């Protein structure tokens, strides 16, 4: 009887229209959930959806199988409107075993009661412990109201290939194509591209698996969804933030990237290593971050600006050299793809905890420029901008990306390449007699940089306090002068910045201020509450040091200002915490100190991107 109703539901299934859906695919590492996710995301994007994907990466290379922390996979958020962040809980989850699902559930990655498609082979596993672990999770999920469907992936796939472990992922792509009504032809093209001529023998079995998944869903599931396209037709590029950074390095005309491997920054250098030699560039893997930074500084000093890419612990090691770059006025671009801290922290997870360390972490007064891309597109352009600023202002520019941008994928309009992005050739013309290597302009602090090889420009650059000739300071007043001009350069740069745009009305009850990768989530939350008539706006800062003029005036138009950040802050709920000892989130500290405005903050360090839903809930509570 029960079976009959199920059959009827399948036979009469209706297509449910949605404006967005979040899909998560998780497996043990090596089972291909990441490939399946990427492929299906591409199919959704090619069908005209706006898509944001996030890689789910375990901390180890081959973590123990069937463990909650070992999940590897992909989360896809696809919608009919521009998607700018990973969104809230998943609506549909596919698990290759029940344990990897558990991990996501504990991290609140799934919407309560969402659809779960679970590999069923474990139910009859010969190891009784595995079988009982499986049934206990299945029972719990059902009790908790999840719509759980057991899928015999292994059994179905073994009809086509000897080792189903290596093919389930294509079966899953087939399932998804059926559920979301996607043209199988798009999937076939992806498979053909993936295996290409080199592995042509693999194409046929994978196409079979794809079809099998599609048919299985058609015959066994009673639901189908449609997420209509959102109307974008211009050519797009889909990349993660690290690929975008690497492409930005190429576009900026830089030729040397020096690095030492560190998660989550390294993949930028992987990609760069693959392509850089085609343009005469080189990725130098140094013996440590200090050497990498010194190498980049040496290269910058002798010619075009170079870049060094790292994450928090690496930046900590570079600190002394960062100050040298500022002190000796050597252009340098440093990209910090932030991860969870302190110390070794959460290497694969997101945090925005390095802002204050970047601005103030260099002992002594080291005025540098600090900027933060907010989107994956920004990751590309910010490197081009950073290189230009570094050379124009003869200083260090730090670009603060983070793990959320590094592993998230988003489509952005294909950039229109222009020669102006690239650095001009280095000037090797003779230096006019009487010109000093640090000929600080009295108003701006700017001076022309002499590059080795330039006749008449010989001088010794030093990290010791020095005068306009680069001579070591032995007289009082010289250090004051040098610090003064280096600081003026920041002011001169600040004058070129435009005030940030307010998202929403220019005044109101609450202003949410953010920086870096949280932009999409903040603006989505703000739009949601604005629809309900709440008087909330958002402001996002790209330049954190120096900050543009006009920010104070914007903040003053709101009854309350608070930052939303992914870093640690105290809350007043703790018995011991009060206004005298409360530690604020990074940007909140900064805004309070600079503008004397009572800026509040809401932040946490769960190692996850902040969900728009959580921000929304927080805003509603604030305005209750």
């Amino acid at each position, binding site marked *: 009887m029960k079976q009959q109703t199920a059959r009827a539901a399948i036979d009469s299934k209706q297509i449910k229209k949605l404006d967005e859906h979040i899909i998560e695919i998780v497996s043990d590492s090596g089972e291909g959930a990441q490939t399946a996710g990427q492929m299906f995301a591409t199919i959704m994007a*090619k*069908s*005209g959806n706006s898509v944001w994907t996030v890689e789910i990466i375990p901390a180890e290379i081959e973590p123990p199988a069937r463990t909650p922390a070992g999940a590897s996979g992909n989360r896809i958020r696809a919608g009919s409107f521009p998607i700018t962040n990973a969104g809230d809980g998943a609506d549909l989850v596919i698990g290759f075993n029940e344990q990897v699902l558990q991990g996501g559930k504990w991290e609140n990655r799934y919407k309560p009661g969402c659809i779960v498609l679970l590999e069923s082979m474990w139910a009859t596993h010969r190891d009784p412990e595995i079988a009982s672990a499986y049934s206990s999770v299945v029972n719990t999920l059902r009790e908790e109201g999840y719509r759980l469907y057991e899928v015999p992936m292994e059994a179905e796939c073994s009809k086509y290939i000897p080792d189903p472990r290596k093919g389930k992922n294509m079966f899953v792509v087939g399932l998804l194509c059926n559920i979301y009504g*996607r*043209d199988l032809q*798009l999937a076939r093209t992806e498979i053909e591209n993936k295996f290409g001529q080199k592995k042509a023998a693999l194409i046929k079995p994978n196409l079979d698996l794809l079809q099998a998944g599609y048919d299985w869903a058609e015959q066994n599931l009673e639901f189908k969804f449609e997420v*209509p*396209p959102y*109307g974008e*037709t211009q*050519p797009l*590029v*889909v990349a993660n933030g690290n690929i975008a950074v690497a*492409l930005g390095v*190429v*576009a900026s*005309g830089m*030729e*040397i990237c020096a690095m030492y491997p560190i998660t989550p920054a390294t993949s930028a250098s992987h990609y760069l290593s693959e*392509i850089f*030699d*085609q*343009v005469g*560039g*080189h990725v*130098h893997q*140094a*013996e*440590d971050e*200090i*050497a990498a930074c*010194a*190498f*980049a*500084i*040496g290269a*910058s*000093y*002798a*010619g*075009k600006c170079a870049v060094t890419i790292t994450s928090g612990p690496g930046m900590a090691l570079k600190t*002394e*050299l960062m100050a*040298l770059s500022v002190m000796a006025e050597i252009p340098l671009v440093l990209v910090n793809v932030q991860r969870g801290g302190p110390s070794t922290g959460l290497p694969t997870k997101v945090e925005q905890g390095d802002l204050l360390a970047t601005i103030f972490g260099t002992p002594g007064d080291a005025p540098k420029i600090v900027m933060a891309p907010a989107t994956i597109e920004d990751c590309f352009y910010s490197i081009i901008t950073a290189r230009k600023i570094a050379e124009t202002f003869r200083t260090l520019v730090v670009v603060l990306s983070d793990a959320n941008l590094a592993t998230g994928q988003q*489509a952005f309009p*294909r950039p229109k*390449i222009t020669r102006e992005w690239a650095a001009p050739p280095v000037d090797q013309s003779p230096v006019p007699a009487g010109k000093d290597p640090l000929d600080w302009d009295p108003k701006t602090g700017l001076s022309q940089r002499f590059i*080795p*090889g*330039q006749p*008449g*420009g*010989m*001088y*010794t*650059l*030093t*990290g*010791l306090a020095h005068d306009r000739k680069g001579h*070591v300071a032995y007289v009082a007043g010289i250090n004051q002068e040098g610090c003064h001009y280096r600081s003026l350069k920041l002011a001169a740069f600040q004058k070129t910045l435009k005030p940030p745009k307010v998202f929403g009305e220019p005044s109101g009850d609450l202003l949410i201020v953010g920086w870096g990768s949280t932009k999409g989530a903040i603006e989505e939350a703000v739009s949601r509450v604005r629809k309900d008539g709440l008087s909330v706006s958002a402001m996002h800062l790209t330049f954190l040091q120096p900050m543009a003029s006009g920010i104070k005036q914007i903040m003053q138009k709101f009854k309350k200002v608070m930052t939303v950040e992914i870093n640690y802050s105290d809350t007043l709920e703790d018995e011991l915490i009060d206004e005298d000892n409360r530690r604020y989130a990074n940007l909140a500290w900064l805004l309070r100190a600079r503008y004397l405005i009572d800026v509040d903050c809401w932040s946490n360090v769960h190692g996850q991107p902040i969900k728009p839903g959580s921000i929304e809930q927080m805003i509603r509570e604030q305005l209750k």
Partner: protein
Amino acid sequence: MTIKEKTSLFGLSSQCVLKVDDDYKTLEDYQGRISRWCPGCGDNGILTAAQRLCRDEQLPPEKCVFVSGIGCAARFPHYMNTYGFHGLHGRALPTAQGVKFRRPDLHVFVNMGDGDCCSIGTAHWIHAIRSNMKLVVMMHDNNIYGLTKNQASPTTPIGRKTNTTPRGAWLKALNPLTVTLGITNASFVAQVVEWLPELLYDVIRQAFHHNGLAFIRILQRCPHFTPDVFSNLLSDPKKLLMLEHENGIKLSDTMAKLYQTRQQHDPSNLHRAREIAEADDLVPIGILYKNESVPRYEQLTKPKQKPTWEQRETLLNNAFDRFGINIDARAAAGNI
């Protein structure tokens, strides 16, 4: 072209000497600021040798870069009239590598103290030797931290009292020669003393012409803190083991009379070089090891052609194609 085209002066090609009188550089042309080292400091002799090298090779001053760390020795670049990079304590080598990598056309020299090289910069020392870029590396070894005033360095003799070891240095001194000779790709390892200027000059000159990283440990007197560490070598010339060879240093007759502990040593013999470096009783002087055929990092990684903007444009376009998405119009129109 003029008749001078065929002439050759100081081994230079004719273009460089078209205006011999104007362009000929004298020692003064390479002298920077007045040195502020202590009177009697051995660093002065090293400075003179470097200036003499530049003069004899007629190096354009703008084409030379002296890179240093921090310490007394590291003040070196200020006293040269070339480009100089007085960087951070311990970090001279990776900085110099960056300079040389970016600009193979420049002559890059490195001056470091024993603390700079063998303590805070140890990792860089090992890896710079291994990458074997064309650099002339001078390690001014005064067996002490000079600038910070008399603390033990890794090369301070065991038992020596310093400000941080008032009852004597605990550990046996590190031997920079055996360390360097033990590193894969070491291609030029020499030792000299700064008080024998002819030998010092000769070794620096050979280092300059070496096809790779030339590491020279220079024993350097510090009149202030270690005036006595080398006094046995000064008072007893027999303690210096002169390594002679047609591919190494050759002693003049007078020198040969003075320094009677001599040995023919073929610098291509790494095994023998290590044995010599290991010996505790004698201080070897000369070129311990030389191998011109070790690959250089900057050559291995050299771009195949001169990069152009057009190449970049092509690369970017290819990447945008690879990651590009063209919306499938049929699918996007919902006709699926």
